């Protein structure tokens, strides 16, 4: 989409006005500073997804819309988790982070902050695997997606 003020609110407004749900939405400028790339995760019947695609295409600021789930694609999300790291937790948290290929990027006496990327379900699995009491704070970016192989968005 055009990297214009207001473009994001047009998309968000479209979803709320038409009652579509947004599970997650990520957006940032691309290598071409005049363009932004947005990944939206939504759910709906085929008819609803078709309408969402058409309605998005109708927005003047949108250059192109693809449904990544129409083909092979890669999806990644970044999560930061602050966990308890005192006493016996300390070793346990390090171990779990390693298993899930996380990285501890900030350390205090009492806490670790773990960085992890992956598909959404992997991040879910990590949180599941942790003791609920250990999690102090989580922040997730929502998924960014891209086609697999030679498939690209540019027309």
């Amino acid at each position, binding site marked *: *989409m*055009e990297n214009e*003020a*207001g473009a994001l*609110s*047009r998309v968000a*407004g479209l979803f709320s*006005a038409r009652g579509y749900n947004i599970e997650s939405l990520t957006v940032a400028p691309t290598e071409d500073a005049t363009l932004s790339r947005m990944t939206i995760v939504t759910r709906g019947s085929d*008819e609803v997804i*078709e*309408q969402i695609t*058409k*309605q998005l*295409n*109708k927005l*003047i*600021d*949108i*250059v192109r819309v693809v449904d990544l789930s129409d083909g092979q694609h890669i999806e990644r999300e970044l999560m930061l988790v602050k966990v308890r790291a005192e006493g016996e937790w300390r070793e346990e948290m390090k171990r779990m982070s390693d298993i899930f290929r996380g990285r501890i990027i900030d350390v205090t006496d009492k806490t670790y902050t773990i960085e992890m990327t992956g598909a959404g379900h992997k991040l879910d699995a990590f949180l599941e695997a942790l003791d609920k009491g250990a999690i102090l704070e989580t922040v997730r970016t929502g998924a960014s997606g891209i086609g697999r192989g030679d498939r690209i968005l540019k027309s």
Partner: protein
Amino acid sequence: MELTGAEITVRCLAEEGVEYVFGYPGGAVLNIYDEIYKQDKFKHVLVRHEQAAVHAADGYARATGRTGVALVTSGPGATNAVTGIATAYMDSIPMVVISGQVPTPAIGMDAFQEVDTVGITRPCVKHNFLVKDIRDLASTIKKAFFIASTGRPGPVLVDIPKDVTQFKTDFEYPKNISLRSYNPVTKGHTGQIKRAVQMLLNAKRPMIYAGGGVILSDAAKQLTELARLLGFPCTNTLMGLGGFPASDPLSVGMLGMHGTYEANMAVQHSDVLVAIGARFDDRVIGSPEHFYQEERQIIHIDIDPSSISKRVRVDVPIVGNVPDVLTEMIKLIKTSKEKPDQTALKTWLTQIELWRSRDCLKYDRTSDIIKPQFVLEKLHEVTGGDAFVTSDVGQHQMWAAQFYKFDKPRRWINSGGLGTMGFGLPAAMGVQLAHPDAMVACVTGEGSIQMNIQELATCKQFNIPLKIILLNNRYLGMVRQWQEFFYGERYAESYMDTLPDFVKLAEAYGHAGRRIDNPAEVEDALKWAFSAEMKNTLVFLDFRTDQTENVYPMIPGGKGLSEMILV
């Protein structure tokens, strides 16, 4: 040479060939008004409420096909304009609205008369812009006109902060503009058009369902040719009236909630339905479940892909501009060796005549109270069916649609999608200014007319001699009808008590008026209003009509096309 933003704005409008700007001044647009004062390229029409400015620009656009232009100040000026903008948006009317905004450094400071106009209007415009840099001003206005008038038309708002109207920059109006993210299609997909033609040629019970898209794209000629070439019956939506001549034997009138028995039955029982610039509105096909009870194939021609398969599934979608697509279809049909099955078609048309003979629009012609339907029939007669008719919203709107048989496009001007009471009078002003010598009638109700009655002053100032046909039933009639049918006759707040003396009111504004109580006086009053003597005078006719008359047929909410309440 360097020009101020205000000069640039005015120059851009002139470059676009704008004839009328409908507006209302205020602090944020004073610089622009100062430039308007100094120029003579376009005329400015000072309305008495910003809603009316937008409706007038809208009426002008509907009557001409050109882009309407309105100008309002920031804050309350902009919020007053919102109803007008939403009205135009719902009916896909090409329009550019320019609004003033507080100076850029004041934005976000809760400044005097600041509202987030771009935010407020976002869901009811085709697109909008906030111009933060004067260097973008000319190209933004160019884009606004381009976007408003191409593809599926719609209103575009340009919000201009006051300081931007003061700054200076070089002015050059771009000749052309292209937007990488906006390329509306025109020609339909050839393969799909071929499939559609084949389907039409094989049809046994064909039906053409034509909508506002035919009017918006000036395709009445092609539609009429197609229907006559095939000998297929045609129905129009409320927005499509005049797209196919109502007097043609193939016309079955309007379909939908208050459509004719023959139109609704024919659509429900058709085997091939071709929708042309129509969007399967809920007021048109009623309940989709009921609609699906009969099997039929559907061809849908629309320039907006999101109109297709939105409410009903379609077999042959054709994304394209109506006249282009129809021209191609006509060519294919003419060169095809096949012809539609004439025996089947004859049986089908006979069936339709049978439905037509139900005479679903009949009313008591012997009544000694004025029947609203009678006034509209007489209006048609007196104006030779050649008037521009605007309307407000309610029962009178439906009767006008049913009884003023429109033979030409752009003659019927009403708010269908939003159903905005208060639309009729200001829209009629725009129509009359666009066509100074034409007969313009505003059919209205005593509820609706009071929503923008202040515009009688505008009509006086600018010599707009339109004729107001008030069907005064002393009720919010459409509301009263629903209360009678569905709310046990509990008439909550639907009686218009303490009505003004409309004749005196019209006279107070400097116009002429007459109150009509008897059916015998109806024709005479209309003849007077449209006489040469009153050619340059606004005439306000207050017809005291039957208070309890209802609009028939009616499809109750949630019911299907063939489940009409009939008189």
